[in-house]
């Protein structure tokens, strides 16, 4: 599983998943109401400070930024030339702060706890005519099959390499999709034989 969770016992680790998600959503929205560069920089510093407070290594903070580095630099430069460096830093700092904030959630919460938290909230879906059990099953199935599809993709690429076709997106995608669809019949059968009824 791609769990980015880093085990720990800090106060952030012990906060319930639902609370953290809510806080993230609220803070993430409120931050867009801020206009002042100083406040944004303060926000960024505060979030960064939470990392050592949660006993998370600073390397993990950097890991939240690294995948988006390209976008951050692009935006910084674009804004720098269009509207000036202050705007550039403002936008970049805001985005970096949000990434780090979201990173805190990811690093201190197990995916399974988040899924459990969501499932507890699923009962609301009944009022919108959605069956919570189906949503829960779909979630688990997706999590289960992501690594499987990744493996299938790798296998198909290997097989196509022999024919020199491993760089052709079509030559790889068609077999992968076909295999995926073929799996679906058996998976549905397996689910039904385990007593799941719809």
């Amino acid at each position, binding site marked *: 599983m*791609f769990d*980015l969770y880093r085990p720990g016992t800090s106060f952030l680790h012990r906060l319930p998943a639902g609370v953290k*998600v809510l806080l*993230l*959503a609220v803070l*993430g929205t409120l*931050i*867009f109401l801020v206009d002042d560069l100083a406040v944004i920089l303060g926000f960024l510093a505060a979030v960064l400070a939470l990392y050592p407070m949660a006993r998370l290594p600073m390397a993990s903070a950097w890991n*939240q930024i690294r*995948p*988006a580095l390209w*976008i951050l630099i692009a*935006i910084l430069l*674009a*804004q720098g030339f269009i509207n000036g460096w202050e*705007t550039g830093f*403002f936008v970049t700092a805001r*985005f970096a702060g*949000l*990434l780090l904030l*979201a*990173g805190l*959630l*990811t690093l201190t*919460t197990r*995916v399974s706890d*988040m899924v459990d938290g*969501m499932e507890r909230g699923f009962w609301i879906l009944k009022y919108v005519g959605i069956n919570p059990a*189906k949503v829960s*099953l*779909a*979630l688990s*199935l*997706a*999590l*289960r*099959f*992501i690594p*499987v*599809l*990744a493996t*299938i*993709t790798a296998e198909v690429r290997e097989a196509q390499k022999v024919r020199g076709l491993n760089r052709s*997106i*079509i030559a790889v*995608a*068609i077999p*992968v*999709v*076909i295999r*995926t*669809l073929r*799996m*679906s*019949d058996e*998976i*549905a059968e397996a689910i*039904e034989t385990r007593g*799941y009824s*719809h």
Partner: protein
Amino acid sequence: MNTKDIVYIALFAALTAALGLFPPLTLPAVGVPITAQSMGVMLAGALAGSKRGGLALLLFVVLVAIGMPLLAGGRGGFGMFLGPSGGFILSWPIAAFLIGWLIERHKGETPLVLSMVYIAIGGVGVVYLIGVPWLAFAAELTLTQAITGSAGFIPGDLVKVVLAALITRGVRKAYPDLGTRS
């Protein structure tokens, strides 16, 4: 919504995630890296249909939101939606739904060129319609600036439209009784 539908939804969400693992291609003319991942949107709509395709991408978005590093480049987490590319990703469920809906509306089998048009309407049209304004908002740009900044990705996206249509046709040939209805 039967068991098979739920499996389809989960699998196409997983497929979109797996597509994020393809290395990005750089189109020599434009110099902008394009990732295969948004093809997941197009394939989900074209192969699983409007309802299942849309829900598959919704599921994908939820998985990214809870922190799974499923976006191309190993990115994920709620922060992505609050950033410049957030609108693009959030548009994906709607795009997949629209593509499926357009193809389903079409009586009989959709000819290749027309399927490309439908896929483009959803996979490029809707995506940019939602993604660009959000980009402007999150990156403090004017709409014009946001459009200009995004324009470089359009040729790559159009290539993806063609690829998605060809892949869809190839899959349907092998799976003729692939129903888009449950």
